[in-house]
């Protein structure tokens, strides 16, 4: 298994270089270093000298990908791409364009993102599986039919609607929770309860339908018929056998997103004033802060690769037939 893990890590390197190159290309297709300087220096009284100074300080005065004025390896190393990308592989993110330390920001913002994402994932998983099992149990009845209709309806509603509607009802009309904001420690619960509830509610449609499909597929298999023939109670069949055997596709969906929980939620964090990494990424995109954008894309890629690796490893835990070679 160790060899498999090492091989997967080695595969990740060209993928990360590719992701970096694409991010770099996309960013600089729409923004020039001059644009970035102007964005940071403001709209009033910006002189060409100030722009040149800003670029020089941050190394944006060099060519993007190829430095034709240099010789040998320096043609590559004396470029913006090389200088900004190589250090990422050592997880040295440097400073944002406003000179705040990116690693420090990531460390402080990770907590709020996780405080929101972990409960949303766990509660959402529990609710979706329960709802799906209920529909599977009552399959081909009106409860199942209307459950599916409800799922489709809920899937069709925009996340923004859930957020604004949830804030309106829970905070403005009923005055139950703060409409937005965040505090650290245990106080965080007061602020994340509504976004978590909205996240769970918004995910029931897609999650419920997906898990219902998985369970129904399992329930049609021979071992389920055998279990029933043995006289096992339906609840035992569902929870002890069907649920266990449906774990592989569930794990595929869940384990892969666990590392990505660190990245936070772009929309929810913005609306609820939660100072997480999702909100950080949105701010960076709006401020054309390339240093932050490339760091967040890089971390996102690393976490995604990690998620896929964990998914593969988890197969071996839930299905003894799977061997990683």
């Amino acid at each position, binding site marked *: 298994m160790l060899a498999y893990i090492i091989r997967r890590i080695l595969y990740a390197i060209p993928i990360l270089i590719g992701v970096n190159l694409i991010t770099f290309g996309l960013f600089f297709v729409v923004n020039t270093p001059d644009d970035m300087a102007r*964005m940071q220096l403001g709209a009033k009284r910006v002189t060409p000298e100030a722009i040149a100074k800003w670029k020089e300080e941050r190394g944006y005065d060099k060519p993007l990908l190829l430095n034709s004025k240099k010789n040998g390896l320096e043609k590559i190393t004396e470029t913006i791409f090389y200088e900004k990308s190589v250090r990422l592989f050592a997880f040295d993110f440097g400073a944002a364009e406003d*000179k705040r330390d990116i690693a420090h920001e990531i460390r402080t913002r990770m907590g709020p993102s996780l405080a929101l994402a972990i409960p949303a994932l766990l509660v959402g998983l529990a609710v979706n599986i329960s709802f799906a099992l209920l529909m599977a149990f009552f399959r081909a009845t009106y409860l199942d039919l209307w459950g599916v209709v409800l799922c489709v309806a809920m899937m069709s509603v925009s996340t923004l609607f859930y957020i604004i509607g949830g804030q309106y009802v829970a*905070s403005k009309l009923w*005055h139950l929770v703060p*409409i937005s*904001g965040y505090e650290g420690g245990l106080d965080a619960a007061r602020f994340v309860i509504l976004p978590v509830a909205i996240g769970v509610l918004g995910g029931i449609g897609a999650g419920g339908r997906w898990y219902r499909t998985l369970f129904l597929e399992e329930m049609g298999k021979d071992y389920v018929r055998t279990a029933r023939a043995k006289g096992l109670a339906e609840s035992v069949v569902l929870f002890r056998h069907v649920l266990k055997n449906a774990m592989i596709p569930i794990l595929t969906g869940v384990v892969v997103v666990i590392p990505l929980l660190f990245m936070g939620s772009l929309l929810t964090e913005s609306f609820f*004033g939660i100072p997480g990494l999702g909100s950080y990424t949105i701010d960076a995109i709006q401020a054309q802060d390339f240093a932050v954008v490339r760091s967040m894309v890089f971390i996102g890629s690393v976490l995604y690769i990690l998620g896929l690796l964990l998914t593969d490893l988890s197969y071996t835990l839930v299905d003894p037939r799977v061997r990683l070679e």
Partner: protein
Amino acid sequence: MIFLAGCGEVWNDPYPGAERGGSILYSSFADRPKHLDPVQSYTEDEAVFTQQVYEPLLQYHYLKRPYELIPLTAVEVPKARSIDGGKFTVYEIRIRPGIKYQPHPGFVAENQKLTSKIVGDLKSPYDLPLGTRELTADDYIYQIKRLAHPRLHSPIYGLMAAYIVGLEDFSKELKQQKPDGWLDLRRHRLKGVERVDAYTFRVTLKASYPQFVYWLAMPFFAPLPWEAEKFFEQPGMAEKNFTLDWWPVGSGPYMLTENNPNARMVLEKNPNFRGETYPSEGEAGDAEAGLLQDAGKTMPFVEKVVFSREKESIPYWNKFLQGYYDTSGIGSDQFDQAVRVSIEGDADVTPEMEAKGIRLSTSVETTVGYLAFNWDDAVVGGSSEKSRKLRHAVSIALDIEEQISIFANGRGIPANGPIAPGIFGFREGKAGINPVVYDWVDGKPVRKSVEAAKKLLAEAGYPNGRDATTGQPLVLYLDTVARGPGDKAAFDWYRRQFEKVNLQLEIRTTDWNRFQEKIRKGATQIFRLGWNADYPDPENFLFLLYGPQSRARHQGENAANYASKEYDALFEQMKNLPNSAQRQRLIDRMVEIARRDAPWVWGIHPKKYSLRHSWIGNDKPNTMARNNIKYLKLDGEKRAALRREWNRPVIWPLIGILLFLAIAAVPAVLSYRRRERMAARPT
């Protein structure tokens, strides 16, 4: 529910329970401030923080209008003294003795040699032992030197280098220094800024520049203790975001004690603040409005200010209505809910707001938004009669009053020239109208008819909007920034305005950077832009049309690239004069020339509408200064009582939902049990 019930009577309060009833002002910010270093900071959202902490030499009178400069840390407003036959101008500035800085670790000698372990363990710079010292003239000199600091970007360096003697050479000298580590500016002499004694210094300018005193009221000229700069330059500080750019150090009424630009910024009363008295005189109507009740009392009145980050307008507005923000602006989406406008055009709050005791303040901003014609463009630019008449026709056709009504909810007044109301040189009434666009009828300006515009267009050689020589329709191009689908209505409106005189308008949308680039290169025909005044002097508006400020030619602020020798000559005379009848005459002539040439469609002076709750007092809009928090007072007990009344938790729907789920579960449970008891499963 049980958890929430532990929050007390109010469940949706976003602030800690211990703060209830306290003398704390609650406000918000949408965007992270980029700079809090006074030498770099230049935006309004940053000034909200910097101007409570830093004390420049001068400030604007809080109540008087037109805006009046008064001393802050200076003993008096400095007067210019001309030397060497007018070749140089000297300002000798004396500051008040006895002013102390806020408590800060930089003033404790041991804190200047921190180990990496101590720095690594710091949660806040204020965890260290704190000290203070007296403010001296050297701190102002140090800050002026910082304008030329090689690692800082002061937006006014270019401007000041043109005036302060030796600043340019000083900048070159600093560039020779080693690029890292703390740069001790005390060791480098700046010729034009001299220390006279501990409380006096002298600034020498290369020429007369009367507007210099206005800059002395901005944080660019706030004092900066060298100890603070040295303290933050220690290794490991930047990695923890402990920099002077994020942790301001001043002598003002407040100090920034919590700095989390992602969520919360907190200002607390500076215990070393010397105390300043509330003004005892204002303009007419201030006494009736209760704005002089605290005359002579020591400020600041509020103990603490909490700014929460609020990126979205919906939660921000709802929190204001719930009483969790003390003041608020009004977004377009909330305008109808908040404001009603009478037939006479007077604005007031709606009955819903009135029932909550919310009050409205309005003030015309020292801003102008305009539509510019690129003077270098072959069709709309230049001083020919043809292009001038075309510009006049467009100026008449564009119904600015309608634009204000539709797109700004009436929040603005049409501009008749470049100068905003409240600034010397602005004229009201008949003398103030633009005769190119308006006639004075029955005591009010009336926009000229579309027919008049069409006639001008025909005279310009475009009868019915077609080129008289080629017969081709005249197509004009408007460059603008696209912000989203909401812009479509505004663009359609522009097209309709041009269609009124049979002109075709093509709108070329782009992002902000491309838009700026086009203007820089002069690759535009017509475009939208605006200007927010740095200081209340007509020079700060009239220079927007000054030839040597041309954007395309000199990268200046004259974005239209307007060029008129007569205007430029008058500007050079006007800019150095004090406000006087002579200056007014020159301004009148300049405005007349600009109206005749019409390089802009004189657009709009926006009106600022702001709301405040009944527990806030002494709130008067001031568009020039942001150091207003020290004047505000609040009744924390009243706020707490009203918050309780407005935010009683409504629990019955929650209980109803739980009951519904429980009842809905009954048939499912029964069905489950029935199934379990069945002998065989149905097929």
